[in-house]
Structure formats: structure tokens, C-alpha cells
């Protein structure tokens, strides 16, 4: 436990001090000002635009963090052999994975918390400027959307871990995790699109449908975590939906990490 915690701690420190994280956070602040400016130029739907922009930029910046700071912190550890200093300790391969994952997740939670504060501040500014536009706005919907975005980022990170556990270069890991993210966030929509023609009598190739269905099971269903629209419109999202999405996210990450541990146990580091 102590070993796991200390690895998480140095991973966090290493990540948080790196230029990538600084750069991304500065970019986030820029996005926040952009948000205030753009929503301010709107004549109507100021609340919708402001919330949607806040959530989208949080998601975007979060993804940058996951891919360029998070996944990299793991795969570079293997590539540059900094992993030797960890594996030479009485620390199991599984604990290495978990410690690293905990440390990187902490970086993402920490950065996203800062971003969320900034984004919320921008919304407070807009709300005070256009109180009439924010009648349907709900802080809780915004908060839950932040939370689900965070969970989806952790899920994406866990897929990155799976790829890094067997691939030999950080570039391959990066590409695979980005592709997984793209498929994961669109597979469900594609499935829905393919299923529609059935109802109007058109035929989709069954093989294609089968593949897409399989993809929906294998790849993370990231659309589950996307309640940006609901938050922007101030719509009510049932707590049961939020809880089950969180549960799905945790379960999916757990499976990814378990697979990474199994693969990592057999791996050699020449």
C-alpha cells in the first residue's frame, strides 16, 4: 500500500510540474475568456451557449490532458526506462499499474477541478450580466455534467493504460487511445443510424450491423457520459441515470486495468 501510494505521489508531482500540464491549463484559461466573449455576443440563448461552451472546453482540455500528459506519463515511463527505478523496488507489476493510474487520475481530477472553478466563474459572470437568460439554468445539472465528463476521461485513460501495457512506443499508444476515443464516442450513434433504415424497409448489411454492435460492447460507450445538451437546456437528468453511468465507467475502467495488469505481469523491459 505504501509503495502504491508513494508511486502515485511521485507520478502526481512529476506530472503536475511538467510543462504540458502548465500549457494545457493556460490554454484552458484562454478558453474561459473566449467563452465569456462569445456568449456575450449572443443575442439569445446566452445560457445555453455559455454552459455548452464551458462543458465542451472542459471536455476538450480534459482530453488533451489525458492524451498528452496522462497516457504519456505511463508510456514514456516504459520508453525512457524510468520504470526501472520503480520495478527495482519490492513493488508488484499490478501495483505499479494501479499506482501510476492513481497518480495520473489525481492529476486529471486536480486539473479539472481548477478548470471547473474557472468555467463556473465565467458562468457566474454571464449570469450576472444576463439574469433573464438564466432562468432555467441549474447548477446541479452543470455539476453532474462536469462529474460525468471526469468519469469519461478516466475511462479513456484506462484504455490508454491497456494499450501502453503492451505497445512498445508511446506514439502507438497515443494513436490507439485517440482512435478508441473516437469510436467510443460515436459507435452508439452509428448503431442508431444503421438501425433506423430497418424501420423504413431499407436493408443494411447484417455484417456491418453486427460489427457496429460488437464495437458498442468492446469500446467504451462514451456517449453515456455526455449530458452537455441536458445541462445546457437546464433539463432534469435522473439521478439513477447518473449513478448507473458512473457505475458503468468504474466497471469499464476496472476491466481495462485488470487486463493491463495481466499483460504487464508477463511483459519484459529490455
Amino acid at each position, binding site marked *: 500500500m505504501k*509503495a502504491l501510494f*508513494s508511486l502515485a505521489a*511521485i507520478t502526481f508531482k512529476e506530472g503536475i*510540474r511538467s510543462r504540458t500540464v502548465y500549457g494545457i491549463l493556460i490554454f484552458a484559461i484562454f478558453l474561459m475568456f473566449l467563452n465569456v466573449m462569445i456568449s456575450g455576443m449572443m443575442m439569445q440563448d446566452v445560457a445555453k451557449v455559455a454552459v455548452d461552451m464551458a462543458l465542451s472546453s472542459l471536455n476538450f482540455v480534459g482530453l488533451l490532458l489525458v492524451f498528452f500528459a496522462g497516457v504519456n506519463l505511463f508510456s514514456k515511463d516504459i520508453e525512457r526506462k524510468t520504470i526501472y*527505478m*520503480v*520495478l*527495482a523496488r519490492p*513493488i508488484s507489476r499490478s501495483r505499479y499499474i494501479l499506482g501510476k493510474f492513481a497518480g495520473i487520475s489525481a492529476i486529471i481530477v486536480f486539473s479539472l477541478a481548477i478548470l471547473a472553478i474557472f468555467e463556473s466563474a465565467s458562468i457566474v459572470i454571464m449570469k450576472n450580466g444576463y439574469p433573464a437568460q438564466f432562468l432555467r439554468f441549474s447548477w446541479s445539472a452543470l455539476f453532474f455534467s462536469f462529474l460525468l465528463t471526469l468519469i469519461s476521461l478516466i475511462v479513456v485513460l484506462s484504455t490508454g493504460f491497456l494499450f501502453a501495457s503492451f505497445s512498445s512506443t508511446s506514439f502507438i499508444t497515443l494513436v490507439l487511445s485517440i482512435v478508441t476515443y473516437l469510436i467510443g464516442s460515436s459507435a452508439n450513434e452509428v448503431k442508431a443510424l444503421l438501425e433506423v433504415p430497418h424501420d423504413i424497409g431499407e436493408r443494411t448489411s447484417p455484417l456491418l450491423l453486427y460489427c457496429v454492435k460488437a464495437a458498442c460492447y468492446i469500446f467504451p460507450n462514451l456517449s453515456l457520459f455526455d449530458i452537455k445538451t441536458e445541462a445546457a437546456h437546464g433539463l432534469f437528468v435522473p439521478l439513477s441515470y447518473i449513478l448507473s453511468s458512473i457505475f458503468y465507467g468504474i466497471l469499464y475502467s476496472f476491466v481495462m486495468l485488470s487486463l493491463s495488469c495481466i499483460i504487464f505481469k508477463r511483459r519484459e*523491459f529490455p
Partner: protein
Amino acid sequence: MDPIIRVHDVSKSFRDNLSARKVKALESISLSAEKGEVYGFLGPNGAGKSTTIKLLLNLIRPDSGSVTIAGRSVEERELRRIVGFLPENPYFYEHLTAEELLWFGGQASGMKGSEIKERSMMLLEKTDLLDARKRAIRTYSKGMVQRAGLALALVHDPEVIILDEPMSGLDPFGRRMVSNLIIDMKKAGKTVFFSSHILGDIEKICDKVGIIAEGRLCLEDSLTNLLNYGATLEDIFFAEVEKISVKGN
């Protein structure tokens, strides 16, 4: 008594990524070091020194044969509590300070906080990093990184210390510092296994010498025995390595 480090009949090959051919790195190699010995592992570049050392740390696994330390398989996690390791050309998390690096090493090896503090300060002083201990490793010179790695390898006061080319990249002062550290460890009853291709280093501090070339151990003997033949270590080294190259070609 059983040797504390024992590599028995180990072969290891790597798959070459480009040609998909297998490269033989080690061919049924056997060696052993007794407790309290300083073992100098000599060989030209590409001989298989680092490969052997990575096997001792369970970073890679043998195709055949067995590797044990203190009678236990190197696959045992807890074994690494008594093993200290300095990799070749070490590279650490660059935004950490030397102090934090040692803190991690101690924590991960199950040491108490006060113990870590005490050992760290002592080692940082010995490796001449006391002034730089609160600076990020990114700002260190190559020699300083090497010394930080050495301090990290020793922070948990290990019984068996495995160093891959500990003198490389160091100036004469640094080399003397490493020699002195190794001599200190020997005095404290520790076993030191280190690789090098600098013959002078070995001659001064080793009890036992193993010479490896092209993945095969050519010779293993105590230094006194070897030098009894009248030749210098350099003569023996060249003779043994050339014997292997002739056989190989």
C-alpha cells in the same frame, strides 16, 4: 555456503524488431558471487552484461536456466527489499528532486520516514549532492544523475547491490567516489556485483572477476588467482575476448 548471487545455465535471446530474427544475447551462462564479495563483471560493449543484470532484477526473463539471489527466485517481489540497483545510463523522473527520489525509494522499500531522512542525508552527502538535493533532476549534469542513481540504489541499505556501469560518465573524482562507496559496502559485509569495461576500476576493488564476451562467460576467478599467473588483468581480458571472437567467426 550457497552463493548469494547465482546465475545457472541461462540463455536469452531477443527478437530483433526489424528483421524478426532472433539475436542471441546470452548462451548458457553461469556465474556466482559469494556473500560479502565484490564481483567485477567485465566485457566489451554488447557482450551481454546489461542483459545479465536485467535478468537479476527480473526486468527480463531467461529462455532457460535459473537466476537466484540469496537462494530465492528473482521473481519474488519481496526479494527486492534486499537488492539495490543502478541501471546503465539511469534516467529518472526529471521534475523530481534528488530528495524526493530517495523518499520514493525508501517508501517503496518499506522504510520508516525518519529512517529515510537519515539515510538520504548521509547518502546525499557521500555522493556530493547535498547542495543540489532540492533541485529538479532535470537541471543535473550527467555525472550528478549517475550519483543520484547510486544514492537511490543504496537508500534502503540493501544486502546485494547491483550496478550497471556505475563509473560511466563520471570524472576521475566521481570514479574515486564510486570506488570508495563500493569499498565501504564491502566493509559493511554487502555483496556488490557491478559491470564495467574499465579495467583499472576492477583491478582496484574487486575480489572476483567474470569476463563475458559474445554472450558467453569466458572466465571466472578470484582476482588474486588471476593475477598470480603473472599477467595483468588487461592481458587476460584481451586474450579471453579474442579467444571467443576467433571461435565465433
